[in-house]
């Protein structure tokens, strides 16, 4: 187990957001913020007291890259999550890890260990 992290989850699909929350809780982490649309995600990325973030690439039609920009500026590590796989990734963010949906707890855990 890695050390407990304070995590922002950005995921526009309600049931998946709850699943990710459960997975993270089971790993001993704490989901301090959950955002499902771009605007609240940007607000949380700016202010939330977090060590890590999981970003769905597509937020009901809007790419989440502006959120990634804020996190990079703050130096908060993160991983992308996407049903598109890495093909949905803007070339500017190619260096970031993408967890492909649907994923299992181990996939998420490995991504956190290698990124956080």
């Amino acid at each position, binding site marked *: 187990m890695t050390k407990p992290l304070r995590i922002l989850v950005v995921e*526009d*699909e*309600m*049931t*998946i*957001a*709850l*699943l990710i*929350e*459960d997975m993270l809780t089971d790993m001993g982490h704490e989901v301090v913020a*959950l*955002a*499902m*649309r771009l*605007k*609240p995600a940007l607000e949380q990325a700016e202010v939330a007291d977090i060590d890590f973030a999981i970003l769905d690439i*597509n937020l*009901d039609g809007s790419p989440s890259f502006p959120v990634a920009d804020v996190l990079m500026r703050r130096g908060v590590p993160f991983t992308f999550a996407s*049903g*598109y796989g890495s093909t949905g990734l803007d070339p500017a963010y190619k260096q970031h890890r993408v967890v492909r*949906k*649907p994923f299992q707890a181990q996939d998420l855990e490995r991504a956190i260990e290698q990124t956080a």
Partner: protein
Amino acid sequence: MDGERANEAAAHAVAFPVGGGELGELIRNYDWASTSLGPIESWPQSLRTATDIVLQSPLPLVMLWGSDGIMIYNDPYSVFAGQRHPQLLGSKVLEGWVEVADFNAEVMRVGLAGGTLSFKDQELTLYRNNRPEQVWMDLNYSPVMDESGKPAGVLAIVVETTAVIEADSRRAIAEAKVRESEERFRALVNATSDVVYRMSPDWTEMRALDGRGFLTDTASPSVAWLDEYLFDDEQTTVLQVVKQAIEAKDVFQLEHRLRRADGSAGWTLSRAIPLLAEDGEIIEWFGAASDVTARHEAEEHLRLVINELNHRVKNNLAIIQAIGAQTFRNVDDLTKAQANFVARIQALAKANDLLTNEHWVDASMQVAIETALQPHRPDDPSRCLVEGPSVRLSAKTALSLSMAFHELATNAVKYGAWANDAGKVSVTWRVDVSDTGRQLHLEWRETGGPPVVSPQRRGFGSRLIERGLAAELEGQVKMTFEPEGVACHVDAPLRAPDNG
């Protein structure tokens, strides 16, 4: 006197006819005594003179002497006569040219009566070389007088014009073919809806382009065609394929983007062939370009639809995974959990159906809620009230709302207002409009069910509603477990479905 006569006779024997080439020689040696002309020494001066004229002429001449039309001709005529020569010499004209005897009989009749005849490009069928030949000739006949001043023979100038006539005829046929071909070509150009164009051998200059409304016309040669028809980023590709076609002197074919007559971008399938000279060099390129914009747009649309479908399928699989993980988490009764799982998947499938019917653009809140409640609600319509103003939801919000109401409905069936025969559920909402936007107030209220016991542990259903739906709507969602019935209050800003 006698000596003079003898000398004169000797001079005749040696000198007549003087020269005259092959025919002169043949005439000198011919046995004229066997003909109606008699021995050559006895010929009258008029016949001698006429014979000299015939032999000295560069034109094909033949003289028909006497009523028999005995033939005397020159070297040029012998060429015309073909294999009939030399038998023709000294023969009667009607026997010598049996196949045109009627024609020559008329010539003799007119000529010996002192008349002349002229024929321009007269067509005759002759057997000069043992086979019928169609020939054309310019024929001019004039009478030749004897010492008494009466016509004794007919002089004919025979110029064959067959080669000229045949050349004219060939040219006329060729011209007709070219005209026909041009007409067919013009018909094809008019019939096709394709753009038609012509390019210089190296494609630096466009000679003409008929744009058919798809592209701007180029009426006179232009070197600016590249910028006229092609966007900057397309030029390199097109020129590359052009270069290959020129090098190979073979078909140019490319499907590419271009600037349409109205300035917008379109797609064309363009094909050009090189027209080659006899030496193999390219004279010009002739091309046709069809408008394939609609097909391209359809393909692009299809690609987007497939991508979107792929995304939705994967998303649904992820949702099902999430539902499965949540439903089977910490369960005591596996059979019950399996039934819950199936019911949740069915709710998801129904929500998908609803959104497919609405083309995944947006959905009515009323329909989304009624669809979610439909499998669970009692038949009695008074036990389920769904009422509020028209509100459109984005596809994603509608899906989340459906899942949340499925959870509320199953809870009502198991423990709440729909667990007995009398309880009622009312779902009502209103929309408040203020300076900050539109605010949705929605209430789920159960009445008349068995007394409510507040749950010791919050399950997936209530987490989905309170945490999930709240985040989805970016608002507050609160469930209360009062003894008279479960209630759920939603307060959320309403966004337009398209920017949700």
